[in-house]
């Protein structure tokens, strides 16, 4: 006789558990992103473009930004200003931010000229743009957290601009502790959530087809079908292939 202990999977999806929050969330997640769509083996031929490489470079640079930021947080300002290793990690943190913004802007320009919001992809576009705006704030508070004359200069120059908007009442750029917390807690969290959501939306909706591809098929709606994969298999090429 088979028991539940012999078949652990049998305890999942019992009809009497359908009302539970975990069951509802699991079903919603699997409906939105079945495994084949979340981690596909193939992509449409038109994904073979350098524009998407810059999206990946942006995510890679963000990983380096977060990793080096964590190291800086462990050792503190005296280390990143005076120790040769600290100066090196500090430079890695700065230059990975430069690469992050550089790649993100190239990716953003490319997606703008592709009108990448077509076909129910507005949320993908908006999360990308908002990620850019929030990242500017994260970088700005980073410059204020350097603990040197540069950060003092920037904060005293910025305060009048911020105060003229009225935001200075709750966002005081000369308050180092507050700016540091924004830089290492709130804004990285926001950027992480936005970028993560952006990537999941790319998987959910697929990459926008080129205009020519849409016109050729006489389609006015470029939205992907609700079934995975988010493109027609006949167009598929191995990832990275131009075919």
């Amino acid at each position: 006789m088979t028991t539940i202990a012999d078949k652990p999977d049998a305890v999942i999806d019992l009809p009497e558990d359908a009302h539970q929050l975990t069951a509802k969330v699991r079903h919603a997640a699997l409906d939105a992103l079945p495994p084949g769509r979340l981690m596909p083996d193939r992509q449409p031929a038109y994904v073979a473009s350098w524009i998407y490489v810059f999206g990946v470079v942006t995510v890679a640079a963000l990983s380096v930004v977060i990793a080096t930021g964590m190291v800086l947080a462990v050792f503190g300002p005296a280390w990143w200003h005076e120790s040769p290793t600290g100066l090196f990690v500090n430079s890695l943190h700065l230059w990975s931010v430069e690469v992050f913004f550089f790649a993100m802007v190239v990716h953003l320009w490319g997606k703008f000229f592709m009108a990448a919001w077509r076909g129910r992809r507005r949320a993908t576009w908006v999360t990308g743009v908002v990620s850019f705006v929030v990242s500017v704030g994260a970088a700005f508070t980073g410059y204020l957290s350097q603990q040197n004359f540069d950060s003092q200069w920037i904060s005293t120059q910025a305060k009048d601009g911020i105060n003229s908007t009225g935001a200075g009442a709750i966002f005081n750029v000369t308050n180092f502790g507050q700016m540091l917390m924004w830089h290492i807690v709130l804004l990285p969290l926001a950027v992480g959530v936005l970028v993560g959501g952006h990537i999941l939306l790319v998987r959910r909706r697929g990459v926008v087809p080129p205009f020519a591809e849409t016109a050729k098929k006489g389609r006015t709606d470029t939205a992907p079908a609700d079934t995975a994969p988010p493109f027609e298999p006949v167009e598929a090429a191995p990832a990275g292939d131009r075919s």
Partner: protein
Amino acid sequence: MRRMFASLVNLNGPGHFVHWGFIQMSVANLVVIGLMAVVFVAAILIPFRGHGGRR
């Protein structure tokens, strides 16, 4: 070694700025924007090669 990795540009001095009406921008930022434009055009025009030389 230090000389080998020394900056190609002398950074010991005040920055250089360009003025265009009410717009003021550092030359450094202008160079970065120019590089982004060049890389963007290159990303559009240069074909993306696949693995193993397949096209």
